[in-house]
């Protein structure tokens, strides 16, 4: 039953996305003539982000609020569920929402990467570990230390308020470009003295930046990943031969050769 509901929701979401697809397209920039002609422009700005544009953006708003709700809902799941698997599932939902939000920010490459790496790989890892630790129950919130929790909670609420307040005042450098799709990036083309325009946030654009100015970072991150892999293996290995991954003793079929070899070894030492 729950599975059906989940599938239904996903279909609806996709449909909504489809319905409002035109608004995701690159909106045309304001025609140049508009600059010369006196236009009735309401320049009363009550907040920096309230510029009205021609294109419909109520769809955008709906999408945003929906996926934001998914993100935050998933995050709250993680933080409040007692059941580890439920928490993991909440996390996955959160990542879905985040991926969609990335798409709204014209970060297409990263949106896909987010799904692949985070929801695909990291969450699977988490699920594996949850399987190993088959201890589901614990109090979500510690019963002791209420004073500390209260103070911390208060601090967090305050930070939320302050951050929101501050962030709502952030101004883009050029408000007119805020509502448009970002300009394409000009990359040096295959032939000399030509430039190639690639979409902003696309694979090519990110790739150009990663392997260009960010080459050192790329190499460094690869070393980091190597270290992480080695470290994870080293740490997670069972200590003794007769322990499995969960730390429970396991039977090792002993064969005669190994036993004799051992005896000879220890006899030689003594």
């Amino acid at each position, binding site marked *: 039953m729950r599975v059906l509901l989940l599938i239904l929701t996903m279909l609806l979401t996709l449909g909504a996305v489809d319905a409002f697809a035109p608004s995701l397209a690159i909106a045309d920039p304001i025609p140049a003539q508009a600059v010369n002609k006196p236009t009735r422009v309401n320049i009363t700005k009550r907040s920096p*982000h309230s510029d009205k544009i021609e294109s419909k953006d109520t769809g955008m708003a709906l999408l945003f609020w929906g996926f934001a709700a998914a993100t935050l809902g998933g995050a709250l799941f993680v933080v409040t569920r007692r059941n580890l698997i439920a928490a993991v599932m909440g996390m996955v939902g959160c990542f879905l929402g985040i991926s969609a939000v990335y798409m709204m920010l014209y970060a297409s490459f990263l949106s896909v990467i987010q799904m692949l790496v985070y929801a695909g790989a990291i969450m699977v890892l988490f699920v594996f570990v949850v399987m190993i630790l088959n201890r589901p129950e614990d109090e979500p919130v510690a019963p002791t230390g209420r004073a500390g929790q209260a103070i911390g909670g208060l601090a967090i609420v305050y930070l939320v308020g302050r951050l929101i307040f501050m962030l709502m005042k952030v101004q883009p450098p050029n408000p007119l470009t805020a509502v448009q799709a970002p300009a394409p990036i000009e990359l040096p083309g295959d032939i000399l003295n030509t430039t190639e325009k690639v979409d902003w946030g696309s694979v090519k654009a990110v790739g150009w930046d990663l392997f260009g100015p960010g080459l050192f970072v790329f190499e460094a991150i690869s070393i980091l990943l190597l270290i992480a892999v080695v470290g994870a293996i080293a740490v997670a290995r069972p200590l003794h031969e007769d322990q499995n991954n969960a730390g429970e003793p396991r039977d090792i079929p002993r064969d005669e050769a190994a036993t004799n070899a051992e005896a000879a070894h220890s006899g030689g030492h003594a």
Partner: protein
Amino acid sequence: MSDILFNVGYGHFLVLAALLFLIGTAGVLIRRNALIILMSVELMLNAANMTLLTFSRMWGDISGHTFALIVIAVAAAEAAVGLAIVVAVFRGRRNVDVDRLTTLRH
């Protein structure tokens, strides 16, 4: 009010990222299960990513995307190692409750 609701601007993304970050922080502070703590840390990292991408869009600078990619890679590495440690600890103590994983005398 309606313009905040209907006109999605950069602030909305930033606020969403901030909320996500704070939920992650709350999770780290409040929960006792080590796995949940790790997941909350992932939440915080994602929030940071979102902020990065928002500002990258705002200033038109593509290197924000690169940065976010690196952050994802680092988060993955960290999750791997962290989970390995949790497994190792669980092996020894049969317990991943951080309140009980203390050898410091109270």
